[in-house]
């Protein structure tokens, strides 16, 4: 018979997730039954300081947001590498410290490059 890994510690997390989705949905469903429904086209127009909306709302936006998202992926993956290192630091000692200095140094080079290219400056 094959042994399966059952993540029993995570069962409460699952129950909490179900419970919180249920909380959100039940509040909305209850509201659906008690609230008035009297809409007309003017009420449903998107907000635009009181004038009729002009043009497409989802227009082209600054590329900076895209750059920020890319940098976020890089740095967040780096942070994810740091967590196990930090937890295991008691066991790996000096060896682990030197390795992490090298890792952060490599990252720092990229960081300085991004800074020099003005990717971090918002204008």
């Amino acid at each position: 018979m094959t042994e399966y890994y059952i993540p029993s510690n995570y069962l409460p997390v699952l129950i909490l997730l179900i419970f919180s989705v249920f909380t959100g949905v039940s509040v909305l469903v209850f509201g659906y039954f008690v609230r008035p429904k009297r809409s007309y086209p003017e009420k449903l127009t998107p907000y635009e300081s009181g004038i009729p909306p002009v043009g497409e709302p989802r227009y082209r936006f600054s590329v900076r947001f895209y750059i920020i998202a890319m940098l976020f992926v890089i740095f967040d993956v780096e942070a994810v590498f740091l967590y196990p290192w930090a937890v295991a630091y008691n066991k790996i000692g000096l060896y682990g410290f030197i390795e992490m200095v090298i890792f952060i140094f490599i990252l720092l080079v990229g960081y300085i490059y991004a800074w020099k290219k003005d990717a971090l400056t918002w204008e």
Partner: protein
Amino acid sequence: MTEFFKTILPPVIANSPILDILVIIIKVFIVVNFAMINGMYLSYVERKVIGHMQVRLGPMRTGPHGILQPIADGIKLFFKEDIIPANADKPIFFIAPVISLTAALATLAVIPFWEDFIIADINIGILYILALSSLGAYGIILAGWASNSKYSFLGGLRSSAQVLSYEIAMGLSLVGVMLLAGSANLLDIVKAQENMPFGMYLFVQPIGFFVFFMAALAETNRAPFDLPEAESELVAGYFVEYSGMRFALFYAAEYIGMVLMSFLAAICFLGGWKGPDFWFFSKVPPVIWLLIKVYAFIFFYLWIRATLPRYRYDQLMGLGWKLFIPLTLANILITGLVKLLIET
């Protein structure tokens, strides 16, 4: 709690997994209700505290000193008409507030209230919290996109860029704590703080604490980093088009996020449920100590909101990327080096 149920239930149930699941459900129920009531009353406390700081009275009409205000607000929001803007992306519009609330509530799973009261005792506590607070960004960006409004679209973009930027600083500021504790489990972190000065990491991780607190303000979209809902420029940011109960879910998510960040700060930097150990202080139940620390933090949040003006967007992004990230990286290296020198 399991022991208590074993004594009152028939042995058939008491020795089966049903009992464990029952205990989990009761814990989840308590914690979710605790969070919802805190979120509700935080809106009242916020208005009251800021009112008094500005020499006003705050809500006074409903009940003595307006104590029933959150309930009145809740009833009002239930009976508000739900307006879905024309051309909105309906399924996404419906799902976004639920994602926000779920992400906020589900983070509470790894928060220990005291030594024996924690929903899920998993060894990746901090990682789990950071992962779920990233999920909160989905609620923001989907709401901004689905509303089909220029204001909410711009607000959603700005808000998600802000949350993403400060997420890194927050994650890195907690690495110092994990280094010292040698664990990402919040229970272990509290236990590891016992032999620190004053039983707190605050005094050995001042930089980490500072960055964490600032990043927590930005993560929960609070003043002075409340640009996503800058009333004067973006009206309310990504949830302009939301009304009634859906709007309330976003608000609840924001306030629960605040409570959660305060819990995290109290547990990681202020020694959690441990209090001073002399005189009658040692008789105070641990959960009271934790709640005192948490509410002190929340009061600090409100104080900051009443005191500081809002940052400009370029200053905000510059602060996050150019100051906090190098600061936290330096903090990690220094902490690692000092720990290495002390232990060898």
